[in-house]
Each structure stands twice: as C-alpha cells, then as structure tokens.
C-alpha cells in the first residue's frame, strides 16, 4: 500500500496538527512494517500517559494490547468431521461421551464447553474435549442416525483428531466480559458456584476479570473493538464477530462473540476446568489489540485497576435480585483483602492475571511481527442494549419439567359418585373440574367427596361441592414460585393451565419429589 509520506512525516513530529490528530491504521501498519512501531500492553499505558501527556502518548504509542484469561463458559466449537463410507447423517453425536449438537447438516456439530460427559459426569465435559483436541489427542467420535436413502449408515464409532477432521472452528457466543461482579456469601453454609467456592459468613470474596488488561475495559465506548477486528483467542489469531450474548454496554457489561481456528490454538491459552459442585467450564486467553488512532483511544487505554468498579454481590441469597454488599475496584480486589461489614475478608481471583499478561505480551509480539491484521470495526457494536438485569447462568426449573401430564378430570355435571370412582382409579387426591369446553372451573379433593358422602345435602353433582377458587400454575412458571403457592395456600396440588384455562397437567407434592431427588436442589 502506498501512503502519502506526509502522513508518516506528521507522526515523526507530533503536535504539528492538533486539529487533525487522527493516526490512520494504515500508518500504524506502515510503522509496523518498517520496524518503527511502539506496541505496549495495556497496563503500561497509565504511566506512559502520565509521562508524555495524551498527545505525546498518541504520537508515541501505536498499538495497545489487552488480555484476559479466565472462565468463559459460553464457548464451544463447530466441527466438520468429513463423510464416512457408507455416509451417515449424524443426528446425535458424542465426542468422548460428551454430546455435541448435531442438528446442523450431516457431519457438522457444535460442542459446547459446559456439556457434561454421559459417563464421567462433572469430571469431564466439552471443555475437556476441546483441551484434549488442542493438546493433539484423539477423541472417540460416536454418532447415530435413522438412516436415509442418501445417508444409509445408522451408527458410527471412530477416533478423530484435529489433524483428521476438516474444520474445527471455535465460535463463542459470549466471551471477555468488560468486568464482572465479585461474589461473597452471607449464608451459613459453604456454597459452590460458578464464582468458585464461597465460604459462609463472608469468609471470602471471589472475583473475575483482568481489570486494567481487560479488552473491553480499555474500550468502553466500543470505538476500536467490533466486528472484523482481530483478537487473540486460545493463542491463535481470531476475530471479533460482534456483540456477545447478554451484551449490556449501558451497564458496563459489554461482551464479545469471538471466533478462531481451534487447530491453531494451544493449551497454554485454553484449559478445561471444573467448578466444584457446579460444572465444567473453559478457561480461555482472550486479547484484543487497540490501535491508538486518536486521543479517545489514548484516554480509554489509560484506564487503571482503580478506575474499574464492580459490585460485591451476595450469592448466599439464591434469587436474581442478589443484594450488593459494597462496591470495589479491581485495585481493591487485587490487594488481597476487602473490608466487609467491618471485617477484613480475603479475596481470590478466579481468572489468572499472570496469564492475562502473557496473552497481552504474546499479542504485542504478534502485532510487532506483522501477524495481526489490525483494522477498524466493520460497524460499531451496540451501545444502548441491555437494560435487563444480568441473567444468572444457573437453571431455574420450570413447572413443565416436572408436572404430571396424565390428567384425570371430571365435568361439573358429573355425579359425585363417579368423581369418587375417578379418584380411586387414579390413586389421586385432587380432581380438576372442567366445563363443557374443557376449561378449568373448579377442583374437588378426596376430602370434599368424603364430606359430601357423609352430608349429601348440597346436591348430587360435582359442581355442588367443588371449590371454584382454584389456585393454578402455568407450564412456564418457575417451580420455586409454584412451591411458594403450595405453601402459602396450604394445598398439595396445582392444576397447570394454558392461556385459555385448558388444563395441561398437574403439579403435586409428589412431582416435587422428582425435583428434590434431581439435579437442581442438592
């Protein structure tokens, strides 16, 4: 590329043209090519700006590299395994017994980092498969299919490695949180969360993110980071796709969707992890270079740990509206102790600051070697999204997952006798009562029927004795809320209805047994 020399000249002599200080990325590329570029890691910027002033720093520094290394649950990779002979349209797919999503074409799949092994449970998951592959290991591929005319094969078992398959493309829906709230537990028992182990009675504080080195903390206005911009992902040069899921720039919680070639990644920057009592996750190194093209870039990369504040949130309260005990900066958190309720509490990072530095250092070296195609974003990332509260990653069970779909019901004009027979036959204690259109109009219990038998004065039909005020739930309602209804009204069953009051199931105390025995509540 031929550049007007006058531009390069201008930057040899800073402050000539204050009106038009912008330093085009082409100029930065040229400096890199000529070996004259100054590339620094983000933690060095505050001192450089303090030393040279903003204009001086703009003239001096060409690129600032950032880095973070921590748990990024929302990660995974697309694979294309190639066709077998005879060919198979893989419908369900397992890699080392970890299920990958197979609902994309015949031999494509997506493996998520937090998917757990069907045989080894929490000790091995999608993240481990990714690390094993990156480490050069072979993994077992197992697939099943119905078989079709063009893809007759029904089962396949083989070994695959990154060398043998066509593509392995990491594509992560949500990485590199701008910052992340710190966690504490005011409860009276140890809890195991995706924020690590939290000791009772505010026994410790855990936090995540690299603060001063965090990519998005160095570009909160999203001027330099956006679609098409290169990044370092798992040690390989990848690319920013766009906003990550749950991107909430208005609250200072921007995220990125990233992609990169898994075949080029290294274990140094990609590690499987197990959050005890929670699940598997992937520790990833992510860095983004920020070209210092103008004063805005100088100012945003001069951010310090002291300038980045997060909430210290009580994970001991198991609701979305977790209370905040105080705020703290990354400098406070990194100091190792935080004062909470008048007591000194020790802090632990879940992400590695040391490795974050290594990411930023490696990115700096790659930029200097001309290996990183610096460019401006193809468009600016959304700046106004995300007024919603941050969603927690734990799964709140819904009524639909445990309700009894077998419905035994009576009509309001049925005789009480036949209702009694239904109760006996179904071995149940509650009978929803339906009108001629099948809509819920009441409920009768074993108790109501016994009363009617002893005292038949009210009348012979179900509608004479049914309770018309029925407490109901819906399929989408969180089980915890349904449970509170059961407790509040001191009842033991809830009809599950749809928008038209048609009954679609029953939730009884017995169904809750499934829940307590299941994976949600331990």
């Amino acid at each position, binding site marked *: 590329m031929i550049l007007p020399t006058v531009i390069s000249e201008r930057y040899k002599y800073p402050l000539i043209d204050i009106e038009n200080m912008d330093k085009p990325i082409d100029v930065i590329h040229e400096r890199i090519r000529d070996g004259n570029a100054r590339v620094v890691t983000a933690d060095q910027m505050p001192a450089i700006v303090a030393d040279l002033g903003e204009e001086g720093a703009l003239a001096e520094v060409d690129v600032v590299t950032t880095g973070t290394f921590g748990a990024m649950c929302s990660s995974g990779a697309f694979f294309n395994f190639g066709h077998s002979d005879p060919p198979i349209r893989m419908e369900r797919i397992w890699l080392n017994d970890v299920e990958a999503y197979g609902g994309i074409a015949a031999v494509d799949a997506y493996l998520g980092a937090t998917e757990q092994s069907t045989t080894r449970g929490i000790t091995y998951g999608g993240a481990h498969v990714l690390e094993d592959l990156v480490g050069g290991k072979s993994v077992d591929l197992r697939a099943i299919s119905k078989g079709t005319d063009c893809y007759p094969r029904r089962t396949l078992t083989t070994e695959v490695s990154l060398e043998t398959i066509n593509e392995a493309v990491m594509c992560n829906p949500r990485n590199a949180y701008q910052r992340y709230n710190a966690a504490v537990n005011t409860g009276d028992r140890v809890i195991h969360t995706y924020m690590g182990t939290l000791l009772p009675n505010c026994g410790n504080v855990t936090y995540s993110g690299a603060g001063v080195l965090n990519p998005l903390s160095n570009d909160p206005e999203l001027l330099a980071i956006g679609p098409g911009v290169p990044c370092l992902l798992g040690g390989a040069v990848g690319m920013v796709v766009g906003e990550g899921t749950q991107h909430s720039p208005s609250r200072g919680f921007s995220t990125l969707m990233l992609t990169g070639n898994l075949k080029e990644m290294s274990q140094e920057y990609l590690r499987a992890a197990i959050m005890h009592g929670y699940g598997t996750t992937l520790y990833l190194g992510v860095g983004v270079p920020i070209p210092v093209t103008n004063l805005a870039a100088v100012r945003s990369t001069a951010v310090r740990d002291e300038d980045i504040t997060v909430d210290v949130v009580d994970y001991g309260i198991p609701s979305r509206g977790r209370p905040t005990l105080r705020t703290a900066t990354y400098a406070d958190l990194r100091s190792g102790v935080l004062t909470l309720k008048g007591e000194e509490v020790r802090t632990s*990072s879940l992400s590695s*600051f040391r490795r974050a530095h290594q990411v930023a250092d490696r990115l700096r070296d790659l930029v200097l070697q001309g290996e990183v195609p610096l460019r401006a974003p193809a468009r600016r990332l959304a700046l106004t999204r995300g007024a919603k509260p941050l969603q927690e990653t734990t799964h709140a069970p819904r009524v639909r997952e445990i309700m009894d779909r077998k419905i035994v019901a009576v009509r309001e004009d049925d005789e009480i006798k036949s209702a009694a027979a239904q109760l006996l036959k179904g071995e149940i204690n509650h009978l929803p009562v339906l009108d001629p259109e099948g809509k819920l109009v009441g409920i009768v219990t074993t108790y109501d029927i016994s009363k009617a038998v002893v005292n038949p004065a009210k009348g012979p039909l179900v509608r004479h004795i049914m309770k018309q005020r029925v407490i109901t739930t819906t399929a989408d309602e969180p089980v915890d809320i349904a449970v509170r209804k059961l407790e509040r009204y001191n009842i033991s069953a809830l009809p599950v209805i749809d928008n038209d009051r048609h009954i679609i199931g029953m939730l009884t105390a017995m169904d809750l047994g499934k829940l307590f025995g299941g994976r949600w509540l331990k």
Partner: protein
Amino acid sequence: MKLLVTFSRREGRRPIIAQVVKDTGVLINVVRAVIDSHEGEALIDIPDDQCEIVRKRMADLGATVRILEHAIILDEEECVDCGACISICSQEVFSFDAAWKIVVNSVRCVLCGHCVTACPHGALTQSEET
C-alpha cells in the same frame, strides 16, 4: 514436621498424646484432630529433630504414625495461577509473588482439603506419607 497419628480407642480411653508429651517431654502442637467413639486421627506438629522419639513412643502405645512431608502438592503443569485457592485456605498457605505466580507455603498446611476441591484446574493434591 507434621505427623498424622491414627489410633484405635478400643483399649480404653488413654490420652495418647498427653501420654507421649509426658513420656518424651516434647511439646506437641495438635493442628487438627478428629476423634469418634472408636477411632481417632490427629495431625500434630513437632520439631524435626524430635520426630523419631515421638514416633517411636506413639507406635509403642499402639498408634499408627505417618510422616507428612509436603502436605499439599501443586502440579505446575495444571496450575494457571488464578489464585482461587488463596482465600479458601484458612492457613494462608497460598499467595502471589510479584509476578502473580502462585506460591505455596505448604509447611502451614493442616490438610483440611478445602483447596483440593476448590482448585478449578485439579492442580492440588494431598500428599501420601513418605
């Protein structure tokens, strides 16, 4: 030096540690002890040069004694220097050095095991006896 002492309580309720202190004159620091109706396990700390005499006397009294060399072991290959272990350990075994690398001061470890499960990378294990 740390010793893990296991003793059966079937032969009466002899205060074995007190007995050893009395017999040997060595001051024993009991770091951790779990004792139920028929068995006891105690982690004790004693000066290195008096290890042998304590060990012998304990064995004479019917206890099983194991010497614990490095209580907690860090696998450098697996460790990513996150620091999740730091605030979990009540004995302040873990800390960062100036370059944010984890440092293990295992002498202080009392083998509670909390850090082993808390480490996301499976980098910590409790040692066996030497």
